[in-house]
């Protein structure tokens, strides 16, 4: 049971991360603010993990490949509380993920987050380094797709 809860929590935060992993140089702010409900990515925000509440923000240098950039995602309401992440990219690759807001309602939440968020960091970076084109997995429904890695790949052009 504990394992199931951890997975659910990781998944909720994973949506935020995946929505934020947009290497498109041209439109980072748009990519992230789409968690608020605009476009294809918005469907992820509404069906998977609740509705985004903040607005996307970009700071750091807007410059050529190789530059370090920091993207702050919208806060997304999950069933465990709001989750918000900051992603640092270098040369279009994720170099660091900081979770700047996560549920801390009770001791159990803290236990879950201490475990889930570091693991999630590793997984998000590992999945990116695998550099895959497409995912084969158990049949998803139209709704499940919005939470899938395939959905993230479809949105993240390279």
């Amino acid at each position, binding site marked *: 049971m504990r394992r199931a809860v951890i997975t659910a929590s*990781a998944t909720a935060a994973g949506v935020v991360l995946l929505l934020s992993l947009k290497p498109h140089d041209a439109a980072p702010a748009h990519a992230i603010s789409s968690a608020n409900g605009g476009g294809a990515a918005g469907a992820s925000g509404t069906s998977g993990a609740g509705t985004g509440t903040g607005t996307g923000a970009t700071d750091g240098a807007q410059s050529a490949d190789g530059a370090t950039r920091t993207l702050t995602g919208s806060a997304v309401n999950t069933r465990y509380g709001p989750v918000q992440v900051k992603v640092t990219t270098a040369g279009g690759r994720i170099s660091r993920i900081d979770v700047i807001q996560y549920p801390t309602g009770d001791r159990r939440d803290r236990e879950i987050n201490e475990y889930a968020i570091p693991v999630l960091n590793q997984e*998000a970076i590992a999945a990116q380094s*695998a550099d*895959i084109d*497409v995912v*084969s997995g158990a*049949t998803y429904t*139209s709704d499940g797709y919005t939470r899938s*890695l395939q959905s993230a790949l479809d949105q993240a052009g390279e």
Partner: protein
Amino acid sequence: MTADHVEHVMGTVFSFAVRDPGPETGPAVRRIVERLHRIDALFSTYRPESEISRLDRGELALAEADPEVRRVLERCAELTAETGGYFTARPGGRLDPSGYVKGWAVEEASRALRASGSAHHCVSGGGDVQTAGGPWRIGIADPHREGAVARVVTGHDLAVATSGTAERGPHIIDPHTGLPSASFASLTLVGRGLTRLDALATAAFAMGAPALRWLAAKGVRALAIHPDGRQETTGSWG
């Protein structure tokens, strides 16, 4: 992949990525998408007016059905024979060739892209993948960690079909017992043509434990991920 098109159809999602787009690509994708919706209208078990629903209720005679419906049901019957009954167009007693139709629709989409001049593309539908050209890097979803990849398969002209319980729970019925099969968390097959591969994946999933040996004997490469997370492959996998 950068999806050139994403289409919600047949209760799932189809993604298209074309690496060698030309002037014919856009119109070809539009025609393919129209065809997918026609296939859904003919074959959906969720639509009471589909030919499959009407055949099941006895309101439509097979001889009067769309030629495409007849061909699909013939092919399903051949696969039932090949799989010793583990693949069937009547998995829960009612007529439901969905286990064939999705993989077939994805492969048909790839065939149509080829006909439009594309030699490098990837089509996925509900987690089943048909590629042309390459190399393509195909991640196999880890059924125990949503969003994570268990393995990566790289190659040219590959089809990859996965059956599993990750999203919908145990739902693949063993036709011989009438009970859902839960031997594997997921079972992935790698080959050339998705239509047959997808049907074999469904059959092998229902078969359970003996499936890997059965697939190996057919020369089909497979990766099983067991409910305890253990991974097992046919000898030919690597």
